């Protein structure tokens, strides 16, 4: 027989056909419906926001590739995810130049300095958001009414703020376009600062004000489910976060239902769903073992409620996840798997 060459390779010779870019690409697919709903809800401002943050993230990633004299890592899709996620956590009328800053900061400080994909400690999208939360505290808490008329033909005025300028006052504009009674507040801040509760149905479906992509809890759940079914996401992470949130807020609610929000409201309001499903579940920043994941999830759930109820901010999921990310290496050392056949500790 004629043989040109034989391939030498050490075992195993078979491989599961699912690599990093495949997983990351599917996360992007899962995010697209959420983006579409956000655009439907808030109009072209959000579309521009997504494009700007994604380009900022990709550009920064590529820049650091070039700086480090490494091949382009854009094709692993991870920066695309960071860009889309970042946009979804920002207010719909967030000035685009600030969004670009958030994207650049997220990838540069949150990812590239650690060595790129796999080496980052924190979720890059959340690092970007935390950066602009500190830098632009007013802009990041300026909300836009959902479904305002003309949202597909005009930008929210604040979106197009010139670079390095502060956004204009939007109160007047809001009055013009707003549906009656829009107070420029999210359900969480309504509850926290004005003690007004929002109808549960509106919360589930996303008929409320909020960050671009966090409003429809149900849609986020469905999109997350897609990844769970394709085994590209660890469902235990959001599950434990939900348990942590319900347990903590449940106890508080039982102590004082007047002051504290009920667990269902806590679960479906704000960025909890988006954070739990798509950011806390980021593989890089979460623990390795099921036990570690339990501690991590419960901790994030607990911290979220704590910040929401007792902190000065109305939303707590972002810092809770970042703290969870920071705890992950420690949790991993606590929860090494038990070797098969190792003697169990005598009870």
């Amino acid at each position, binding site marked *: 027989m004629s*043989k040109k060459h034989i391939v030498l390779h*050490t*075992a*195993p*010779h078979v*491989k599961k056909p699912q690599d990093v870019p495949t997983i990351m690409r599917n996360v992007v697919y899962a995010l697209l419906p959420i983006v579409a709903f956000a655009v439907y809800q808030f109009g072209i401002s959000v579309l521009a926001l997504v494009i700007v943050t994604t380009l900022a993230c990709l550009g920064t990633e590529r820049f650091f590739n070039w700086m480090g004299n490494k091949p382009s890592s854009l094709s692993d899709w991870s920066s695309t995810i960071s860009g889309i996620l970042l946009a979804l956590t920002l207010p719909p009328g967030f000035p685009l130049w600030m969004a670009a800053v958030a994207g650049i900061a997220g990838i540069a400080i949150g990812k590239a300095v650690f060595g790129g994909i796999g080496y980052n400690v924190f979720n890059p999208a959340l690092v970007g958001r935390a950066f602009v939360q500190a830098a632009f505290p007013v802009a990041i808490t300026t909300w836009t009414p959902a479904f305002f008329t003309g949202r597909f033909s005009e930008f929210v005025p604040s979106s197009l703020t010139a670079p390095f300028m502060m956004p204009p006052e939007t109160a007047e504009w809001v009055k013009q376009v707003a549906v009656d009674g829009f107070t420029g507040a999210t359900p969480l801040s309504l509850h926290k600062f004005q003690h007004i509760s929002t109808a549960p149905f509106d919360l589930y479906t996303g008929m409320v004000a909020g960050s671009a992509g966090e409003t429809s809890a149900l849609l986020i759940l469905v999109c997350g489910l897609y990844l769970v079914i394709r085994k590209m996401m660890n469902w235990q992470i959001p599950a434990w976060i939900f348990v942590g949130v319900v347990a903590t807020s449940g106890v508080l609610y039982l102590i004082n239902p007047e002051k504290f929000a009920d667990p269902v409201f806590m679960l479906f309001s704000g960025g909890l769903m988006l954070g739990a499903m798509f950011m806390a579940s980021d*593989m890089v920043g979460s623990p390795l*073992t099921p036990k570690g994941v339990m501690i991590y999830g419960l901790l994030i759930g607990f911290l979220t409620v704590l910040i929401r109820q007792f902190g000065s901010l109305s939303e707590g999921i972002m810092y809770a996840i970042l703290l969870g990310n920071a705890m992950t290496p420690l949790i991993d050392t606590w929860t090494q798997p038990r070797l098969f*056949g190792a003697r169990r500790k005598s009870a």
Partner: protein
Amino acid sequence: MLALFEKFRKGRFSHGIHPRYHKDATRGKAIQRLAFPPRLIVPVAQHIGAPAKPVVNVGQEVLRGQIIAEADGFMSVPVHAPATGVVSSIGLMPSAAGPKVLSIVIDVYKASSQYVLYGNPVEPETLDHDELIQRVQATGMAGLGGAAFPSHVKLRIPHGKTAHTLVVNGCECEPYLTCDHRVMLEQPQDLLQGIRYALHITGAKRAIVGIEDNKADAATAIKAALKPDDPITVKLVETKYPQGAEKMLLKSLLGVEVPAGGLPIDIGIVVNNVGTLAQLGKLLPKGEGLIERVVTVTGTNVAKAGNYLMPIGTPVRFILEQLGITADHEKVILGGPMMGMSLPSLDVPITKGTSGLLVFQERTFIGEQGETVFPCIKCSRCVDACPMHLNPAQMGWLAGKRHYAEMESDFHLNSCFECGCCSFVCPSNIPLVQYFRIAKAVNREQKGKA
């Protein structure tokens, strides 16, 4: 305590993987005899332990079944002539593992009837323990499941220990391979005879045959051949890789964990492979040696895929020629795709531990992925796949930094039996098990120096 475990056992081990099995091409193919090759390459070290010592000379005529190399001590087994012919050379020949090994090359007589003349018949039931162990050693039997551990060593119960259960491993969890399956289907009598001898030798009270549930017909065949007073039961276990690893199988069958770093006999269990016991059942009463085995030959574009009975020492090139496998750019593997070795040369022979010969066209085999290695994204798939409950991710990082000693002292590197699940699932294509093999070898070398 064991009985209590058995009541609540789940019939499965945790972790592991579900690769695509690809067994359909050969599972229905009855065992066929392959033609005798014109030349046999018979290594003297086909087992774990001391290599056998050649007792024939170049130019000497050998008869099929005759001892051509003697066991060198207890941790060794003899080698028998797989065919009648003449010894044409004794020297270093290529092996599957890479380095050349001492082999006896036999030019096979074309016109020979290949009748086995050598034998020392006996009734095993009449012999005592030590005599039986000697008899098993004389057959040259080494585990046919792949590891090729001398069978008589496995069957001998160390001083101060007793065996209560014999577990017979019929899992064949490696993808593609079906030779054990066919042996169970076609030779249940030989297998049961072998199990009875093994029970007699080990003094175990009962035997359990563990078979993956994708081979339920094999279980039925064995059950049908059972005698009413046989203390032998047949149990189906989940089809999952590496079910056939003995520690995993014991967990599935009995719910027990072999202590880390220990052997099954530490908890009173002896494990043997079905192929080994079927051969033993056939050879022991006749007093003959192991000279042939069943090998699954399959892969992509293998028209005559099947299970072939062939003499030990048959060169791979001859098998491929016989079966008309001629395509270019191939990868040839001895054993299964998870733990087998890809061959550096086609002039490598089939040995006692060879269960499969797989021929692949590289692309269709590896899947659609390239070989790009991404950084670890801590997805934890390897942690969830490792049947030994190790932390391959962490060990992978340490291996990248060459902290091999730490892998052993802090992360149980030596408990890894190299099943390859971690490398199989890794979405970053990190060669984890390959790292661990290197780490183990380096650690062994370091210890040798110290």
